[in-house]
């Protein structure tokens, strides 16, 4: 499916953006050159070039190192101070020994050691780089001032000073010697960043540290190396700085770090990490050097330097921001043009505030995102004062529709009507003011604030003078509310000290407390225990009595029959049907949702089972799961069923080395093994496909190819050098094999659809030759077609003799694909079921999954 040739290369959006940035930077540089050549006599000359090289070397070398640091998502404020410290130490060493060699060695070693300290603290202790390097900057600057007594140390060793000050003649042209280290460092950095495994790992860590870890990359180690590399650059820069002034100065290079960061930012490195190129940084350095040199030559006051620098930073980042915004806007407009708009009727009145109403109508709602039509002409009615269930698969458009109702997104076309009057929702505040409230699926509470503060968030009660808040009143009101709900929570407790279930209840209380006429509940029971669920349902019935409309989103079809009056099914952004709950049964509902029989999707042809690969005995992680024992053989599919929070994912994390078990043993091919980290797991052939695809799966800023090979870099490299043809070959092979629909292997993965991203992620896992694969919710959030494809893949893997563990909350998925099923409840195994004949039933699993073991 991969297109080949020139056209495919054009699809590399990031490259286009990069080139655009390079052009802008070169344009500005050129503008400076032209400006200066008119204002400064003899500006266009060899001397200018020589000067430029002399002045920009230190900046550029440091910027090379800083590029690595910022790409990992870090920052380094210490290089200026480190130059001073390394310089002082070197100067003392030279003056004591008289040896230039000792001087060079001291500079480099001191730089590396200082970088190592930064790296150790940032990589292994996981402290924020900004803070650590701030502290080491203080420390280094102070130490320097102390050991030098605040005065400069003259270094008269000519050999040592030569690097910074010597000029040689090349065909009549005077060339400063610093050009040699400058070019060397640039080449080294370029090679490391673009051709080596190390550089690739830097990009992966910056793009998605969790995915890096899951790909078997030793994140602390690589992070530390990055700071060590920065330290080495500092060492080289120290030698040059000292040579230029023939001395070590305690205040040398003050503020350089900000210049270096500025150059990198101008060059397009994003501070969040993962994006940017060395070429950009170099252009940034060039531009800055030109600007600063020109200002010096024109002899205008120094403060223009600062002002121009400030304007530059703003200019560089703002052009980026604006061009991205324009591009997105253009794309959205282009897609919106493709359909016939239904013009909003202007003669319709607008609703200011929701009172009691008969019908809430969605009319021809359309919503586009770049590349996707999330809602396609959706129209249906909701009766006021009822519980209206909204179902559909992930990606069916439920969340998008609700976010429109809540003002998070705006409608591209169509309208929402209340009893025939238009309901325009402009922002979340607007939606809340008009009487719409939501309980989110993901917890949307502020951990550091109290229960009362969270409940009143966004609608605080002002005190007597309007300036401050009436905290007593809010606490009391919260207490009443909580009493009414029959939950036992202290209103002045902080959210972070509550259990997940209690947090969910707080969230429900928050929605109920608002004077909402419409309450949207997005999977409200997912974190609730059975008894909490009953409390919730009682509440919903009470709200209904008060005439409040509830839109209830849930994947648990059984509970809909218990609570809902009406049901609407969405599929692929389109409205399928709206019915009273009494007129549907479970089977027809599923058919509406997926448009095919469930068992077809997950059906797998069984194959003979080979020898035992993995055996787990009494595996325990204190407080999480206890005494889990099972085994998996070659070609076998083992399903792990259970409710959310039963400890299934946690077992898998221990097998993959993401967590450590407290007791029990893991046997691989009959031998006891310890899996301390993902690298070890991958080496032993154990792979893990996470449920959290965005979080651990893909590295959004990198290309399809780089994503596929992220976990198997050893395979495509030789002595730390990435063999590009081999990498391309492997990547294309998997694109073909997995049917990944991408314009090119260089296409950014973030622009692919969810299903294709999932396939890339799977390709990354298979590229490291696994013997055992753990799938955690492999088909969550992808469309039905992709689901079927992924299960075909699982079938072929089992046939190849790979052992497979599937963790899934979808019972049909477990039943359709597993040979054996273990069921977990509250951290313990409650059953092992044989399913080789496909004879196990959903009821059987559910009875074990809800069985209390304690």
């Amino acid at each position, binding site marked *: 499916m991969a297109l080949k040739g020139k056209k495919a290369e054009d699809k590399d959006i990031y490259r286009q953006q990069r080139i655009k940035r390079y052009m802008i930077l070169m344009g500005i540089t050129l503008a400076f050159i032209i400006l200066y050549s008119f204002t400064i006599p003899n500006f266009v000359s060899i001397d200018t070039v020589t000067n430029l090289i002399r002045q920009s070397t230190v900046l550029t070398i440091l910027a090379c190192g800083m590029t690595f640091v910022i790409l990992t998502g870090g920052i380094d404020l210490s290089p200026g101070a480190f130059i001073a410290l390394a310089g002082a130490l070197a100067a003392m060493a030279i003056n004591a020994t008289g040896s230039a060699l000792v001087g060079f060695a001291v500079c480099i070693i001191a730089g590396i050691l200082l970088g190592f300290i930064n790296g150790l*603290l940032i990589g292994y*202790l*996981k*402290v*924020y780089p900004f*803070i650590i390097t*701030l*502290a080491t*900057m*203080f*420390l*280094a*600057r*102070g*130490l320097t*001032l*102390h050991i030098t007594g605040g005065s400069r140390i003259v270094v008269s060793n000519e050999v040592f000073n030569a690097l910074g000050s010597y000029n040689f003649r090349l065909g009549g042209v005077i060339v400063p010697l610093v050009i040699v280290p400058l070019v060397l460092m640039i080449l080294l950095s370029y090679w490391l960043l673009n051709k080596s495994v190390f550089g690739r790992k830097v990009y992966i860590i910056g793009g998605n540290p969790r995915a890096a870890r899951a790909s078997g990359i030793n994140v602390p180690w690589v992070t530390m190396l990055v700071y060590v590399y920065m330290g080495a650059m500092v060492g080289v820069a120290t030698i040059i700085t000292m040579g230029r002034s023939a001395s070590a100065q*305690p205040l040398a290079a003050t503020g350089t770090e*900000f210049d270096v*960061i*500025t150059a990198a*930012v101008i060059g397009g490195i994003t*501070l969040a990490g993962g994006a940017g190129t060395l070429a950009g940084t170099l252009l940034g350095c060039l531009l800055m050097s030109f600007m600063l040199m020109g200002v010096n030559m024109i002899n205008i006051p*120094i*403060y*223009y330097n*600062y*002002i121009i*620098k*400030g*304007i*530059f*930073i*703003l200019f560089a*980042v*703002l052009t980026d*921001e604006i061009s991205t915004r324009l591009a997105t806007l253009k794309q959205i407009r282009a897609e919106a043009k493709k359909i016939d708009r239904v013009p909003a009727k202007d003669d319709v009145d607008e609703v200011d505030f929701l009172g009691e109403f008969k019908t809430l109508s969605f009319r021809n709602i359309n919503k586009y995102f770049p590349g996707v039509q999330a809602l396609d002409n959706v129209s249906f009615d909701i009766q006021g004062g009822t519980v209206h269930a909204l179902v559909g698969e992930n990606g069916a458009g439920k969340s998008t529709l609700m976010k429109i109702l*809540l003002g998070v997104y705006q409608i591209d076309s169509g309208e929402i009507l209340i009893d025939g009057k238009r309901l325009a929702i402009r922002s*979340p*505040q607007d939606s*809340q*003011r008009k009487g719409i409230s939501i309980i989110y699926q993901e*917890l*949307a*509470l502020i*951990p*550091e*604030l109290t229960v009362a*503060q969270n409940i009143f*968030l*966004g*609608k605080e009660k002002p005190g007597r003078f309007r300036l*401050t*808040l009436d905290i*007593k009143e809010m*606490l*009391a009101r919260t*207490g009443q509310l909580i*009493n009414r709900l029959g939950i036992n929570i202290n209103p*002045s407790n902080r959210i972070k000290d509550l259990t997940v279930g209690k947090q969910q209840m707080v969230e429900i209380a928050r929605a109920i407390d608002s004077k909402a006429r419409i309450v949207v509940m997005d999977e409200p029971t997912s974190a609730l225990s059975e008894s909490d669920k009953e409390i919730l349902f009682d509440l919903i019935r009470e709200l209904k009595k008060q005439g409040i409309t509830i839109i209830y989103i849930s994947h648990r079809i059984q509970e809909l029959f218990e609570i809902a009056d009406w049901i609407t099914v969405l599929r692929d952004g389109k409205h399928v049907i709206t019915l009273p709950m009494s007129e549907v049964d479970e089977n027809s509902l599923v058919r509406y949702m997926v448009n095919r029989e469930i068992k077809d999707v997950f059906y797998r042809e069984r194959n003979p089972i080979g020898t035992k690969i993995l055996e787990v005995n009494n595996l325990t992680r204190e407080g999480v799961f206890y005494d889990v024992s099972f085994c998996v053989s070659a070609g076998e599919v083992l399903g792990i069923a259970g409710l959310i929070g039963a400890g299934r994912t946690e077992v898998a994390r221990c097998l993959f080395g993401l967590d450590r078990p407290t007791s029990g043993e893991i046997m691989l091919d009959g031998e006891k093994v310890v899996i301390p980290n993902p690298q070890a797991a991958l080496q032993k052939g154990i792979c893990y496909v996470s449920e959290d695809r965005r979080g651990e799966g893909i590295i959004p800023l990198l290309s399809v190819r780089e994503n596929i090979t992220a976990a198997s870099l050893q395979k495509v490299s030789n002595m730390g050098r990435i063999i590009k043809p081999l990498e391309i070959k492997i990547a294309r092979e998997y694109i073909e094999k997995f049917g990944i629909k991408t314009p090119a292997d260089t296409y950014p993965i973030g622009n692919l659809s969810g299903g294709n991203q999932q396939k890339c992620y799977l390709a990354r896992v298979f590229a490291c030759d696994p013997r055992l694969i753990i799938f955690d919710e492999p088909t969550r959030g992808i469309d039905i077609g992709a689901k079927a494809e992924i299960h075909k893949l699982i079938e072929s893997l089992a046939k190849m003799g790979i052992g497979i563990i599937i963790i899934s909350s979808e019972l049909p998925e477990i039943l359709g694909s597993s040979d054996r099923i273990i069921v977990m409840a509250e951290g313990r195994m409650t059953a092992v079921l044989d399913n080789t004949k496909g004879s196990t039933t959903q009821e059987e699993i559910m009875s074990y999954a809800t069985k209390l073991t304690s």
Partner: protein
Amino acid sequence: MTKDIITENFIIKAIKKVPTQRWVAVGILFVLVLVISIANPLFLRWNNIIGITQQVAAMGIIALGAMVVIITGGIDLSSGNGLAMAGVLAGVLYLRTGENIAVLILGAIVGGLVLGIINGFLITKSNLKPFVATLATMALAQGMTLLISEGQLAFLTHPVTYMIGGGNILGFLSIPFAIFLVMCLITSIILNRTKFGTYIYAMGGNEEAAHYVGINITKYKWLTYIYAGFTTGVAALIAICRVGQIAPNLQGSFLLDGIAAAIIGGTSPAGGKGTVLGTLLGVLILGVISNALTFMNVSSTAQTAVKGAIILLAILIDALFNLRKSG
């Protein structure tokens, strides 16, 4: 049940609220004071303590602004140079208007506010990362400082400037420190008793959630940077009155000291966490250290190194705590 909760013993509640980390800071401060006063009993002299309070005031106010910004998950790199700019601006205006003291006070505060407004605009309206935006305004402020102060070398001799810079109330409370305490009080009220303060924590703790419940993120984030600008302005007033002259190098190490004090006091660089009490402790720790070092005849140059070491120590203790907590 509700009643019990509200009438729960205030002191117990206050102690419970103080996280372990804060006790570490208190411990450090206590040990420092103890060791230093044993080494040199003169340290505990009244004069010296008043001296410390005078020294830390401006930096402390900067630290308050830094803390508020860091709680929202941002950073303000422009406060140091902004302080110099506001101070110099106020000084120049003051001299030009015939030594009108109101102009000095207003000039400093307005200078700080303008900087805050610009920072807030860049961050909320232009969608820039706080680090980049304030990096740019830092450079701009530095240039402006030199531009405004160029050629001017004048002393501030008005008695009120002496008062603001080093006066006393009743002989025991230095005026700069009193201003700092008032700023602490204001910041504390904002953080704990107002909508704005609640939203500061909300934005840092979970910005998306804050947006969903209908908080106007743009407005409150902007306000946060304006408040930080305000603290910069007040600090500038104290700083210029202490120096008593228009000095373009007024920024000193205010920026980094301020951030360091906030962090030592337990403000989380990830956002969402931080208290005035903690920052006050952080400020005092840094103040006591540099005073004690001066007292013990440690050269001012070595003080920077010790300061770095202390910050590093505080971070390490914190990091080790967190590592253990997360297993």
